[in-house]
């Protein structure tokens, strides 16, 4: 494989990659900002290079500094982790042009899947269902025709928009013209562009995603993950497998994901994200062209080291996992964040006391330790608590037990939120959608 891997990241994922390197007999180079001089990824890597001051744009997003660090340390490859530069096709190209191996997919694939419109086109061409919808509407007549085709309810969205502004849900065709007018003027006021389009509206969607691996000529779909427990599009809990899928529907979903991966000639690991409607029909949302935070639950049920496979595939080795592989048991991951449980505001500070849970079937991926100071500059993820058991009820029981052992003092965390979630009847019975957390808080 590689001889020396530079990890262009920090926190638990940097540590995760360092561990994979060490087990595979590769040397690792940590890069860090001055704020992370005492971080665990810096201590556990074979070499370290300080690349800049605390703000990420001057350190972890600083491409020249990272390339220089690779140069002076003699690294032959770069692992981007997740976040920061992980989905930056330009960075991937610079890495390759500098004669280094990029531990990720081909930059051109990253670029085309990074653009929503081109990703939708590519996936649609590969036979992946996408949410029925329109392009920008020329007039109200277009909208009526679209609704005849799609059916109600639909959502009107601002073409230039985001964050809910300009969005109108149409449940009654008589209200269409009024809502279109409102959406256009909100879009004009909010984004300076009145263009709107229509998409089928799913009131209570689930977020289900598929882990894929490819070597360019072969592809495998390594099961799905249920990620419906979110707050403001930030995932908080992930599970594998999803309780929402019957075997036949699961086989269909995994088959589609595998074919799509093959169609784009995808190399290394990636994730196809889908929305699942109330009738369990699935629609492509987007592809993440990197390792994900929640890769751990897939690792737990399939017994596969995904980071190691990612590095093998990046080195040009053939895919060695077949589509006959089956998951065993059930895994759940909780994201433990440094945040105020009420306001959800980040809560940096010194960790004065820490007890991490352990025991059978419990895994904690974390970079924190007693007296570690959580810096205010980066994201608030402190730890991932993962459990595996023979089935979902057993995994829930194990998670409750592990949560009871988890102690963090000195900064606020969302541990109590997770304890409440594990007592929530809907979550426990598997009746969940992406709005469940809102309903819990409200």
């Amino acid at each position, binding site marked *: 494989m590689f001889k020396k891997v530079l990890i262009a990241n920090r926190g638990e994922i940097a540590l995760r990659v360092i561990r994979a390197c060490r087990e595979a007999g590769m040397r690792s180079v940590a890069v860090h900002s001055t704020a992370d001089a005492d971080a665990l990824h810096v201590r556990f890597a074979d070499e370290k290079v300080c690349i800049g001051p605390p703000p990420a744009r001057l350190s972890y997003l600083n491409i*020249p500094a990272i390339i220089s660090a690779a140069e002076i340390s003699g690294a032959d490859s770069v692992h981007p982790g997740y976040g920061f530069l992980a989905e930056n096709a330009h960075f991937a190209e610079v890495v390759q042009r500098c004669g280094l191996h990029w531990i990720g997919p081909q930059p051109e694939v990253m670029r085309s899947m990074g653009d929503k419109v081109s990703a939708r086109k590519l996936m649609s061409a590969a036979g992946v269902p996408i949410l029925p919808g329109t392009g920008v509407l020329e007039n109200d007549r277009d909208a009526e025709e679209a609704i005849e085709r799609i059916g109600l309810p639909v959502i009107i969205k601002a073409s230039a928009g985001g964050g809910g502004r300009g969005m109108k849900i149409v449940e009654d065709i008589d209200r269409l013209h009024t809502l279109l007018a409102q959406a256009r003027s909100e879009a004009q006021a909010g984004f300076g562009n009145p263009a709107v389009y229509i998409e089928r509206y799913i009131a209570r969607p689930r977020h289900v995603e598929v882990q894929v691996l490819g070597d360019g000529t072969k592809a495998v779909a390594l099961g799905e993950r249920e990620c419906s427990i979110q707050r403001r599009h930030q995932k908080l809990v992930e599970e594998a497998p999803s309780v929402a899928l019957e075997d036949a529907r699961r086989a269909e979903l995994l088959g589609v994901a595998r074919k799509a991966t093959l169609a784009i000639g995808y190399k290394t690991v990636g994730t196809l994200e889908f929305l699942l409607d109330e009738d369990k029909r699935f629609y492509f949302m987007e592809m993440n062209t990197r390792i994900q935070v929640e890769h751990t639950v897939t690792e737990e049920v399939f017994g596969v080291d995904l980071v190691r496979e990612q590095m093998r595939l990046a080195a040009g080795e053939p895919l060695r996992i077949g589509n006959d592989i089956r998951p065993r048991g059930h895994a759940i991951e909780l994201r433990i964040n440094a945040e105020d449980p009420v306001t959800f505001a980040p809560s940096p500070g010194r960790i004065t006391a820490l007890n991490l849970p352990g025991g059978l079937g419990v895994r904690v991926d974390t970079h924190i330790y007693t007296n570690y100071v959580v810096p205010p500059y980066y994201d608030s993820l402190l730890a991932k608590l993962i459990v595996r058991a023979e089935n979902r009820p057993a995994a829930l029981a194990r998670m409750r037990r592990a949560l009871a052992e988890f102690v963090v003092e000195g900064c606020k965390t969302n541990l109590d939120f997770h304890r409440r979630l594990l007592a929530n009847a809907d979550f426990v019975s598997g009746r969940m959608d992406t709005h469940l957390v809102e309903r819990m808080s409200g």
Partner: protein
Amino acid sequence: MKSATKKGSESKGKGGAKGAEVRSPETAARAARSSGIDLETVRELARIATELNLSEVEADPSGRIRVRRRLGGRRVVEAKADSVSRPPITLAPPPPVEGAPEPGTFISSPFVGTFYRAPSPEAASFVEVGDTVRKGQVVCIVEAMKLMNEIEAEADGKVVEILTRNGEHVEYGQSLFRLAKS
């Protein structure tokens, strides 16, 4: 040797496009004509220089091109409350070093790279221990991404210690020289 020179902007490292200008286009054009380098080449070089925030580009008709980037050394520490819009290369105070003398007496590397004490292998070092340096004087080069970055002293002082050997790799913020106030 005729050269097409482009002066860097005074705003250190500010992203590229802003502030950089070619010193007197007429001079550059005359220089270009008499040296056999065509104007388009000069324009292209100026564009590259702006893009990469170079302080100097030197080209001769044989096709040899030399580029330089001039940056201040570590800003002498102290501590106006920084506004949000600080320029990217302005440096944070050095990480506290145990038993270190007062701040402001070190020149540190503004980025990751390779430390050189002289402009070329055969040339004399920019400074030696015992030398007095003036603010703005070039004290060393840090090579990063094939660019020779000249590091300047940001205050007057006397070099009392050179903390890094020629050709060694340096990290961001690593101390290169210790200065005594002169």
